């Protein structure tokens, strides 16, 4: 991903409608931040003072239950934003965000964003679209949790990771090793042991392969088709 120049900002979804002058304004107020892998950017319940644009790397958004169990709600990659919900409504953060790989992001302080959005209302539409997309994904996820089996949820989590963070290789799409069985378990609301067993079955079916510890999806369309059959009627 390119450095946070105005051209880099133009590729960020919520800024796509903005002109060069507006992008320059954003470039001025945004602070660049590099974070090592395995670092929590903010915790659920923290006060919201900024929102974030991912330049490079990958992060996971998760919630922790009272008993300490973790549920990964989504993963975030370059060009995506996070932290806008709490920044807009002034409530505490609704989820935690942790880097899965070393990540670089742009941070825009709440007050700066407020001034910017007042001057350039188009930005708010972009932010709203992002929030809506996340809400829809959340609805789908809840539906899956209610009606689909564990195998479906694990396969769906693999598909999401491959789609968003996978790197194309000769043998298929390779999911970065930073996402392990525990991450898959937290995404699919199950245990790491169960994920291991399901991975073995998916490997037997030729839908995934574990190669040097990396998860490889030989054919994304096959996995997508298989999901239709795994789903309950």
């Amino acid at each position, binding site marked *: 991903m390119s450095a946070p120049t105005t051209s880099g900002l133009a590729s960020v979804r919520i800024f796509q409608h903005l002109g060069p002058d507006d992008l320059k304004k954003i470039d001025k107020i945004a602070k660049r931040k590099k974070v090592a892998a395995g670092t929590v950017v903010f915790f659920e319940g*923290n006060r919201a003072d900024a929102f974030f644009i991912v330049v490079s790397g990958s992060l996971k958004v998760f919630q922790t239950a009272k008993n300490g169990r973790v549920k990964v709600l989504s993963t975030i990659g370059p060009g995506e934003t996070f932290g806008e919900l709490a920044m807009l409504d002034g409530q505490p953060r609704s989820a935690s965000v942790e880097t899965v790989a070393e990540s670089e992001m742009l941070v825009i302080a709440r007050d700066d964003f407020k001034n910017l959005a007042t001057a350039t209302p188009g930005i708010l539409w972009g932010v709203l679209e992002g929030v809506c997309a996340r809400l829809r994904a959340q609805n789908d996820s809840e539906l899956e949790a209610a009606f689909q089996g564990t195998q479906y949820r694990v396969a769906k989590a693999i598909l999401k990771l491959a789609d968003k963070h996978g790197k194309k290789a000769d043998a298929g799409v390779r999911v970065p090793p930073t996402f392990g069985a525990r991450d898959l378990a937290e995404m699919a609301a199950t245990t790491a042991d169960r994920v291991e067993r399901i991975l073995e079955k998916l490997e037997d079916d030729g839908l995934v392969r574990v190669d040097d510890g990396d998860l490889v999806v030989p054919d994304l369309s096959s996995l997508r088709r298989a999901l239709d059959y795994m789903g309950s009627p």
Partner: protein
Amino acid sequence: MTGAWPRARHVGLLLLVPAVALAHERFIRHQLKQPLHDEFFRRYPGAFLGMHPAMLRMGLNAVIVLAAFAVVWLVRHPIDEAIERAVVGAGRGVQHAVHLLACFVTDRPVRNRVFYAIGQWGVIMFLRVPGLVLMYSAANNSLVMPSYPLDPKTEFFFKMAQAALAVLILTQTLLPLCGALLVGTWIYLNRWGWMVAADALPVLSVAVVYLSSPWESHKLTITDLSEWQVRWVRLTLGFGFFALGWLKIYNHDLVAGVADQYPSVLDDPMVKLLAFGADPSFKRECWVVSFALAEVLSGFMVMTGTFLRVWSVIMAAMFTKLMLVDFGWNEIPHLFPIGALTAIAFSSRLTSELRPVEVLEGRAGRDGKRLRQAAIIGGAAVGLALVVIFPMLFALTFTDRANLR
């Protein structure tokens, strides 16, 4: 919950059967080794507010401590964020540990397996420990606390009633009835005098939970308290300690007598802090007032939910020390407040009565009005501390203690 209060009233009335008993310190010795200076606690002509200068000094110390706690409470989020930011590069484990500790100290939900397990255990203990205390009292011919001896005429009835209530509590059966019986017993304690009833105020905190439990409680695994229950437990428990603190200044001879008999209770850092700068020639009198004010402060913090976990842990540790080190086996009923404090300290459903102030200062902060925000925080903290300490301290100088001797 519906219908529990009318039943509580009926059972309470039933328990108000005439009986005679005298509440006194049966087990904890409290004879004064030498009399206190009465004038220290009374009107002091010529002094500011008519209070002894040492008393005034300790009152001011208490105001400063309370105001400081209130200010830190109201600015705890920025402090917490600064600390958490400082450890961002220290690795995932350190970051999570600091975050959990910060959540614990600032009364935010602590999302951790061990904390959750301790909380569940705390609730189980809190709900059952009154049963153990009642059994102990029955075995010692006492009512609720070993300090309240039963009248021989009604001894059998009350012993059996306590044993039956203890069985219901230990088996978690008909909890709303248990709550009503506890409330009734507390009302009955008023027959010994209002000070005896005030002494047993903390017992009402578990009655709140019992009364708000379902009638089919024996079928349920109750390991968690609702936000409503936690709030009322801290309000009743905190108010109990708050009232007991003031009562200690009113009934100063009793408190000083206990200290004369058990000098180890004098060793308390909070008490020393509150007595800082007070006239050393009134050492015992100053100890009584600072000890009482320490209880007033801790009770107020628990009651309002200000650093509730920190205060709960400190108080639970203090009660454990009293039980194991200072007074011994006869103070085994202190298991009850320990259970209550554990249940609220390890709950993730804490609220605070200072929330309206937080909303106001937060709004000012978001609007960029920093001066107004600081004024709200400072004004609320100092104003609250003054109102909590001085009117009652002042009023107590007018009271006549002749009836206590």
